[in-house]
């Protein structure tokens, strides 16, 4: 076995800069507080990151296709409220598919506007952010939604249950990540998503039906949001109307942190997962270190920007851009 050459090491760093950043920062937090790497804590962080993570998987598709989805936060509130409300009205067995159908309907509507009508995705999803919030409030009448029988319902399995010794939210996250990861990396559809985001004109001339690809990306995103809403609802068995508020930016931060380009055409599911974990562990690590919380807002974003910088620097092999 030969030692890796400098080029090989450099190449690895260039491809996996974000992973190096992740490892560095895990080591840093572990030194600050040994409980950080306690298996229970790690499991706990992954479990509570699962909601954000599942949403980020879908948004990865949308971002790679060259669009944005800012509506996922309020759409997640919608799914959560709807499934909680229907749980007591028509029972969990019917409530879950009904909620998925409604959420997919919203996704299809956004996909239609962005894909087929070619409207700017920033404007459409920003608008849908408020519109869906309004829809949620109308549905609930502004009230908190709670399941009446919190002990007796099997519905709590999605957020609180274990299977094979692993919390169900983590299983759902891993399962969806694997499925969507394969769909993106190994199928013709996945290649079309990259093509549409990388160069839309070239994609059209290659015979790719752009509108359809974008439409499906939004459907995938809505499906992920519905799954996240299901986990959220099942985890707390009750919810405020604003449960997903602000998540759209955290989701986007995770996706971009994973190295997807906001301009489309690049990014992978695996790196999005790393981005999600970085965000989750930063929040948890800062709490464990016991930093004063006003400072936490600042430190969180300093770490994120450092990680992105490290990623970019590794890609170009220099800390500074040679072109001013």
């Amino acid at each position, binding site marked *: 076995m030969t030692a890796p050459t400098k080029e090989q090491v450099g190449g690895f760093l260039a491809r996996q800069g974000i992973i190096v950043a992740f490892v560095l920062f895990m080591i840093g937090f572990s030194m600050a507080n040994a409980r950080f790497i306690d298996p229970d804590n790690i499991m706990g962080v992954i479990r509570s990151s699962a909601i954000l993570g599942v949403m980020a998987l879908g948004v990865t598709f949308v971002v790679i296709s060259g669009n944005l989805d800012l509506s996922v936060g309020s759409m997640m509130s919608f799914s959560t409220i709807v499934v909680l409300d229907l749980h007591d009205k028509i029972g969990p067995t019917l409530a879950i598919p009904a909620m998925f159908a409604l959420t997919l309907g919203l996704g299809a509507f956004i996909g239609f506007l962005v894909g087929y009508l070619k409207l700017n995705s920033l404007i459409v999803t920003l608008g849908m952010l408020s519109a869906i919030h309004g829809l949620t409030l109308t549905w609930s009448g*502004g009230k*908190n939604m709670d399941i009446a029988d919190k002990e007796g319902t099997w519905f709590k399995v999605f957020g*609180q249950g274990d299977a094979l010794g692993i919390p169900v939210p983590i299983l759902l996250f891993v399962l969806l990540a694997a499925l969507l990861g394969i769909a993106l990396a190994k199928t013709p559809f996945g290649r079309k998503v990259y093509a549409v985001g990388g160069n839309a004109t070239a994609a059209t001339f290659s015979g790719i039906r752009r509108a359809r690809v974008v439409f499906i990306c939004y459907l995938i995103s809505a499906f992920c949001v519905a799954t996240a809403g299901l986990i959220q609802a099942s*985890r707390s068995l*009750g919810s405020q*109307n604003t449960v997903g508020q602000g998540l759209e930016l955290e989701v986007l931060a995770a996706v971009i942190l994973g190295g997807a380009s906001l301009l489309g055409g690049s990014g992978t599911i695996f790196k999005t997962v790393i981005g999600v974990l970085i965000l989750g562990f930063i929040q948890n690590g800062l709490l464990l270190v016991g930093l004063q919380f006003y400072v936490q807002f600042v430190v969180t974003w300093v770490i994120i920007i450092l990680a992105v910088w490290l990623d970019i620097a590794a890609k170009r092999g220099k800390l500074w851009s040679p072109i001013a």
Partner: protein
Amino acid sequence: MNIRRIFCASATSVALAGAGAASAETMTIGITQNNVGVDSYQTTYEKAFIEAANANATVDAVVLDAGGDVARQIAQMEDLIQQEVDAIIIWPTNGEAVIPAVRKAHKAGIPVVVTNSNIAQAGFDFVASFSGPDNINQGARSAEIMCDKFKDMGIEKEAQVVHITGQPGYTTAIERAKGFEDRLPEVCPDVTVVDTQPGDWNREKSQKVMEAFLVKYDDIDGVYAGDDNMGVGALNAAKAAGREGIIFVGATNFAVGYEAMERGEYWGSIYQSPVDDAKAALQTAVDVLQGKDVPFLNYFDTPKITQDNMGDFSKPVF
């Protein structure tokens, strides 16, 4: 029509200047609320306000909502001044930013009543009265509830408490935290607050914070949360981690908190009814208009509620 309106308005102003001359005419009271629909408290408040206004034959209410937006609230204040209402009730979206608008109303001779959470001190000169809960007192009462329970359990010498606050920068959050932290060492000097973190009034966020606390501290005897929503989030985290025997105390008793108390999982809270809050605000405005002597800080009572006395209270509707 217009002239009559203006005449009526100035007639009321005159009556006001005369202080005490109760008028039998109807009074128009405008209200601009913070963000109806964002939570159950505010939704119930609005409903109760409208009901109370309808029940009072001498009151005509103009009910507005700022949707949490400061700029919209200022515009609504200006609209109400233009309409020459007799009094304005404001639930501030932001304690600082609304002061110029409150001042403008004051200058136009329209008395302003602040409801639920007060504006910053710089604006006090322009306010006729503040009607709402005494949040510092609520924090203090929560400290007493927790301390009494620790004494019952005989752990008042060594108990450790974690504190989950509301949104940083929000007056209610700051006042409750202050009330709690000042009062606890007075009643239970040996109890330590080992950590404080914000839960942003959000159940999910609070659950995450509590999960981290449970990892960080092996010994937690009590949790004080700035409201029951966050308290229940913390309770969920403790249940998931299998940690038992922790005393949970919140504030603003929500239905979820009340139910958790019924199940014996949650010890106590502060009973604050949005219906009382809304009625008190309307009554304060009416009293001001009728020239009655109204204290500047017109608090309505928010009693302690624990598993022991919860039978005296009906389950909150929100």
